[in-house]
């Protein structure tokens, strides 16, 4: 990835993590959705390349993304109806996002293994960030850790009586500010790393 692609990747990840509710189980479900989408898109791209259907490949992939999301939502509604109701419109975000169009639906003619590794690397970093961010918001916002379960979710209270002003941490504006701060830290580390890299090259 180029420096600009990394910056775009980080900003997309941050933007997606801001809008989701500050609960760990939401992070887990969206991560699972993203990983499944990544794997199936890699297989479908390979299949379309194999049968030489490259002209309308992007259209088919866009339709597939919607098909996958409907299927995922239906399965989620069967297993966890409450969570599916809470996610509602948000479930379309990982699939119809700049992340999918910029990093998963690409023109490359790589082998199946190479595209799987490439896509999974980007998705795994994305998922780990989403999981850590939602865990932080859940823990310090509500004082709990929540896990997805059938038919709803399991809640473990970690910090007792955490109902005061700290619940603002789980809100959207706090997530926005926190993402901004994390991006500053990331860019500072990247700048220092580049300086060290240049110095060692000389």
């Amino acid at each position: 990835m180029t420096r600009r692609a990394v910056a775009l990747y980080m900003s997309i990840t941050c933007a997606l993590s801001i809008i989701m509710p500050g609960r760990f189980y939401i992070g887990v479900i969206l991560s699972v959705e993203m990983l499944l989408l990544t794997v199936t898109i890699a297989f479908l791209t390979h299949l379309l390349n194999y049968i030489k259907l490259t002209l309308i490949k992007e259209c088919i992939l866009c339709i597939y993304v919607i098909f996958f999301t409907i299927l995922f939502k239906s399965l989620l509604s069967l297993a966890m109806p409450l969570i599916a109701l809470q996610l509602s419109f948000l479930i379309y975000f990982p699939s119809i996002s700049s992340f999918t169009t910029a990093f998963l639906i690409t023109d490359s003619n790589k082998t199946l293994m190479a595209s799987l590794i490439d896509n999974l690397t980007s998705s795994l970093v994305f998922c780990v960030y989403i999981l850590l961010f939602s865990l932080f918001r859940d823990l310090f916002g509500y004082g709990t850790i929540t896990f997805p379960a059938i038919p709803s979710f399991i809640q473990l209270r970690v910090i007792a009586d955490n109902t005061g002003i700290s619940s603002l941490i789980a809100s959207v504006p706090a997530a926005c500010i926190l993402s901004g701060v994390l991006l500053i830290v990331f860019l500072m580390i990247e700048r220092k790393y580049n300086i060290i890299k240049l110095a060692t090259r000389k």
Partner: protein
Amino acid sequence: MLFTFFHYFIFSSSVLLYGIGFNSVTILSDKIRLLRLSLIKALLTILLTTISSWAVCYTFLIPLNICELYPFVVILIFLGISIFFETIIRITTDDSAADFNLTLLIIILAMNESLSMIEAVIICLASLASFILLLFIVHIIKLRIYSTNLNNYVTFTSKKPLVFIALGILIIIFLGVNISWLNTGMLK
């Protein structure tokens, strides 16, 4: 009608709270003058797709009890209309106004949360208006960053964190009135 418009425009902004185009608004605000064509195309695509999708859903999906498939109808109609406009723009202006995420998410939101075709159209218009409003606000924030000392060491790509922080503060300004600050639970 007016309440629905302002709900998705400001009170529960589709960009700030639903997150539609949250990332795009921070990127596109740099080239605001070049967006005229894209916005006109987005407006036409959104309106035509919403009206057609609503008609198809009302005629076929609702009688057959398969409303869950509405995004599938939306994407099929959306691709047809979007490719048609994109072709016309490329032939006439040699330019591209391709956009997938923002327009599609606005249409799905409108179809998901509306009870009539008119309401769906109003939600679409309000969401697009909210996006345009945010484009201008973020553009002004970026100009402000340029004019301060921050510009000396903040590069092009790293302006984004400051924009995120500014947007967070903007949400508090817009929606702070909705929070009951005197609630004992809030200021415990």
